[in-house]
């Protein structure tokens, strides 16, 4: 589904002169502009219309899920 807002995370494979080669997964590689962010090889970025708009925080992603599981567990036991 191609969509304006939905920015699938892509891994930065290489960078050069404000551009980066990124991997969207399943062999989909694209060149994107990374001048709006501070990104390095190995980072995951959010790409929108050919431009990386944010570097994703993997740690936060994992912590979000962990936190939610904890909240759900706590509430069930508090019933």
């Amino acid at each position, binding site marked *: *589904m*191609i*969509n*304006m*807002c*939905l*920015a*699938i*995370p892509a*891994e930065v494979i290489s960078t050069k002169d404000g551009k980066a080669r990124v991997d969207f*997964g399943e062999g989909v590689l694209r060149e994107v*502009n990374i*001048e*709006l*962010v*501070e990104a390095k090889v190995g980072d*995951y970025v*959010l790409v*929108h*219309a*050919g*431009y990386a*708009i*944010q570097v*994703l*925080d*993997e740690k*936060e*992603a*994992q*912590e*979000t*899920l962990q936190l*939610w*599981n904890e909240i*759900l567990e706590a*509430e069930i036991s508090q019933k």
Partner: protein
Amino acid sequence: MSETLRFRDPDLAKRVAKKIQKLTPKEDTVKICHVCGTHEWTITHYGLRSLLPKNLEVIAGPGCPVCIVPASEIDEAVQLAQKGVAVVCFGDVLRVPGSKESLLDAKAKGADVRVVYGVGDAVKMAKQEVGKDFAFFAVGFETTTPSTALEIISKPPENLSFLVSHRVIPPAMQLLVEMPDLSLNGFIAPGHVSTIIGLKPYEVFPEQYKMPVVVAGFEPLDLLFGIYMILKQLNNGKPLLENEYVRAVTREGNVKAQELMRRVFEVKDGNWRGLGTISLSKLELRDKYKAYDARSKHNVNVEHGVDIQPGCRCHLVVIGKIKPSECPLFMRACTPEKPIGACMVSVEGTCRIWAKAKEEQQIGLEFS
């Protein structure tokens, strides 16, 4: 990124849905509004409304930047194309109706209209075809605006100008919260707009309007968590600004992108198709960059256009006042193949999202 799949976990979704059921007050109607076409896509595609209690409504506000471009600006783009300027635009802008015709109609009659994925492609084209005049139709909210600003600051080629149609979303949210007959109880704030603007622009909602706001991501669990967080706030009687999408949105947002936007654009009052004028909601080039303004460069200016065709109810759909299925034209006279209103044209238009889900019968598949 495997985490993405975890944000689509059906079991986790059912558990959150149970919590939401428990938290929703039995007697009242709770109305939560989102302002992002992609949020509507996720909600519809994953059948999230079927997981929610009947008295908890999630409505789609004006989250489609293509849908709210006034007909006058489509007319300006068409005029540019008719003058021999190569008009470059995003895919779904092509079929948005102007007062009389769309860019696609103009293209069919021989005008040079080209579709791109991003503004960078327009710059490339202009550099490759030096003798030709190009105009990039810059549509989009704050997610898209920084890329336009970046290209303008980077001294684009002289044969490229910009038909600026960018708008900013928080003033539209403010318009909706001030509509007494909408009776909103909370906002789901857009995910990727917020990666750019951060959280500060939403502070006015809990502070002044006592309205809960939660920034949510685009996976089904992001939205379910976001809805849960709003209900928790309503239960506690304390409206707050919270961020569910912490993996992509920080409090300050993308400061570099914000600075670029500020340098290139100033905010003025603007017309939104179907909503009328919203104060301080539209971006215009600052004097320093006026040389890149397509309107003045090619002497094109349309004051008023026909925004809503007879019978069309996009102006009601776009503020969540009616559902697409409540429009008499929906999937009869107005379909994705033969759209009448902008809401049926854009991939982020509420009507098109509902129409596609109906056609593909995808509702509820993921979580069944």
